[in-house]
């Protein structure tokens, strides 16, 4: 472990990597600030720009954009009640209320401190767990890998929010889109409709740029906005009481965020809502939540960053993305010829550990940037949105072309943007769709291999202990919420009948 950390340290502190880490977190903060541009969009748009870099440098920069945007999106939630990212939506409750009470600077400072605290604690967890999990996963065969992917998909169902069926349907729809082109291990072209461009499949990064950049930006156009609340440099001073109240909340948020972030498909947004829910139950000041309580800023913000870091565990150790943004990052790994998963730790130790150690420097830079400079970043919110979004669309389209060197990719982005716009407008969740899209090829690969091992029978999944446990867990995770919902509905209907009869 120490050797690995030293190796990672050596990689992360090279002047080039430090510089691009700085650029990444700075760009991430700015991108996160802008309404409608979240971490997924930022990583997707800037991925093509990193093509000329060494893989480790590119990934350090892209990861910097990821956690940098977490800081940035909090600023817009607090100052204009318009979250830059869905994971900062809950901050609009207490963060914006604090700002309205003249404590905008303190809210920004608490948010930055809680983020840093959570980032460092969760980074320790990430470093401690990712390696052993990867080593354990080295023993996995196709059946175990297939079971893990199924469990990942099942997690999406369990955490799909109000509408479980819609979540899982979108994940399955993403799977269907991933099947376009020549099937891996076969020579049959599927869903290509005679188009040569579709033979090699649809580039999922292009779809993500369409859904997250084009779709989200255009959806944002339909919304108005609040005038930013001014936060001066002097306001950034946090009172002793605010700090004392924030620390336990940030600790709870960190623990919860980390636990949720490890699960594939759960994501940072869910972690923030759960953390806020926990504060509402256990905080000494729970009655003040929603009225500008520091706990309502510290806890979800810590959960957000902890979950973002934790989502790298399944991504790096198992090759299964934990969130939408890590799904795009997984795409970046593949573009650079790397396959995330257990073998990555033994084949590319300098890259993996360099990336993980860079998180520490990135968060340190972010704290140094955000504590004194948050009011400066906030000025970006004053740039009229109509000037920004055409440039975002321009860059997204050119970036997508650069990824595939193919004009067809432009149309993929265009139509995915249209799809993303309608998904956002009519509340069809994008995250399960994207996870289905990314996991599709892996799922099919392991399915074919498992079937070959079992000589046509997939029951082989129940013959080995690990895959059996994981498969049963996946079945329960997928089936339980649906069956429970049906039973609840039947009960309510029966109650209704009794009421009418009597």
């Amino acid at each position, binding site marked *: 472990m120490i050797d690995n950390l030293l190796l990672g340290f050596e990689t992360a502190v090279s002047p080039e990597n430090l510089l691009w880490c700085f650029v990444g977190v700075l760009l991430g903060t700015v991108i996160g600030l802008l309404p409608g541009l979240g971490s997924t969009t930022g990583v997707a748009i800037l991925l*093509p720009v990193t*093509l000329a870099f060494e893989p480790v440098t590119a990934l350090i920069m892209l990861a910097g954009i990821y956690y940098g945007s977490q800081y940035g999106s909090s600023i817009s939630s607090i100052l*204009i*009640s318009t979250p830059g990212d869905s994971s900062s*939506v809950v901050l609009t*409750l207490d963060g914006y209320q604090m700002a309205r009470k003249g404590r905008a600077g303190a809210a920004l400072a608490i948010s930055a401190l809680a983020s840093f605290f959570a980032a460092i604690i969760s980074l320790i967890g990430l470093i401690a767990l990712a390696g052993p999990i990867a080593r354990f996963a080295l023993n996995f065969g196709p059946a175990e890998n297939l079971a893990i992917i199924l469990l990942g998909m099942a997690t999406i169902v*369990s955490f799909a*929010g*109000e*509408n*479980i*069926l*819609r979540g899982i*349907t979108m994940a*399955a729809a993403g799977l*269907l889109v991933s*099947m376009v082109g020549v099937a891996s291990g*076969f020579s*049959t072209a*599927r869903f290509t409709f005679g188009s040569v461009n579709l033979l090699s499949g649809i580039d999922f990064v292009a779809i993500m740029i369409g859904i997250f950049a084009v779709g989200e930006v255009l959806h944002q*156009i339909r*919304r*108005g*906005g*609040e005038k930013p609340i001014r936060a001066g440099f002097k306001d950034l001073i946090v009172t002793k009481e605010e700090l004392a109240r924030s620390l336990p909340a940030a600790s709870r948020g960190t623990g919860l965020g980390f636990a949720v972030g490890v699960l594939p498909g759960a994501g940072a947004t*869910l972690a923030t*809502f759960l953390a806020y*829910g926990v504060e509402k139950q256990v905080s000494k000041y729970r009655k003040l939540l*929603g009225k500008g309580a520091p706990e309502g800023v510290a806890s979800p913000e810590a959960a957000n960053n902890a979950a973002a870091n934790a989502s790298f565990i399944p991504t790096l150790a198992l090759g299964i993305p934990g969130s939408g943004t890590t799904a795009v990052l997984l795409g970046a790994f593949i573009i650079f010829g790397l396959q995330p998963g257990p073998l990555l730790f033994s084949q590319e130790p300098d890259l993996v550990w360099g990336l993980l150690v860079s998180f520490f420097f990135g968060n340190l830079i972010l704290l140094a940037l955000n504590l004194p400079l948050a009011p400066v970043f906030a000025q970006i919110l004053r740039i009229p949105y*109509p*000037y920004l979004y*055409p*440039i975002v*669309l*321009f*860059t997204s389209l*050119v*970036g997508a*072309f*650069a990824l595939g*060197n193919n*004009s067809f990719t*432009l149309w993929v982005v265009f139509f995915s*943007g249209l799809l993303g716009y*309608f998904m956002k407008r*009519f509340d069809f969740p994008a995250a399960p769709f994207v996870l289905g899209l990314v996991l599709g090829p892996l799922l099919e690969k392991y*399915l074919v291999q498992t*079937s*070959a091992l079992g*000589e*046509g029978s997939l029951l082989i999944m129940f013959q080995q202990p690990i895959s059996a446990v994981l498969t049963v867990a996946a079945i329960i995770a997928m089936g339980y*919420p649906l069956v*429970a*919902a049906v039973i*609840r*509905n039947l009960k*309510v*209907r029966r109650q*209704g009948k009794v009421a009418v009869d*009597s």
Partner: protein
Amino acid sequence: MSPEVIEETIPPRNRPELSDVIGTTVLAIIGLAAMVAGFGYGMTVENGQVGPGFLPVVTGGFVLLASLAEIARLFLARTGTTDGRIMRTVGNIEATAAESVGLHANASEESAETSGLDTFGRTEKQRNRAPFHIFLTFGVALALVPVTGLIIALSLAVLYVLVVIEKRIWWVSALITLGAAAFVYTVFVLVLSIPLPTGILGLI
């Protein structure tokens, strides 16, 4: 307890949004189409192993069934699918937060009604029409790529969006468009050496 009181405690049936029903029906049709096509690709290969059509059939069938179940839920269910679960708490907080964001958005809409413009300087009418107008503009620009090249086509689209759709001052818009084009050219063509399409014109 009187029947009236009991009836008051029973949640009413959902009234589905038309968009939900249409969207879910589209998904069901896609699932059905995928399933039918999957059978054509072959469910199994030799020794009964999984064939290229297996996953499309299973996934397509699943999408079809889940969509039909969702349509049934939209019309018949009296409660959400999350009652009694931890996700109910999450849902409640999400709703409060969405309300909070919506509240401020509504406030800005109200101010838009009174002043004619929102804080981004757009009228409500502009906001509603803009997404489709912008999609159309960029669609036309992409169709122009084989003629003008990528950078020129997209620059024209940006200029059109700024001047015509957003009604910004023309020379500021022109400067921003030129700046964006120069940035993209520098990063992608000069730094990354990516050969962007130059079209029949062959300029940049």
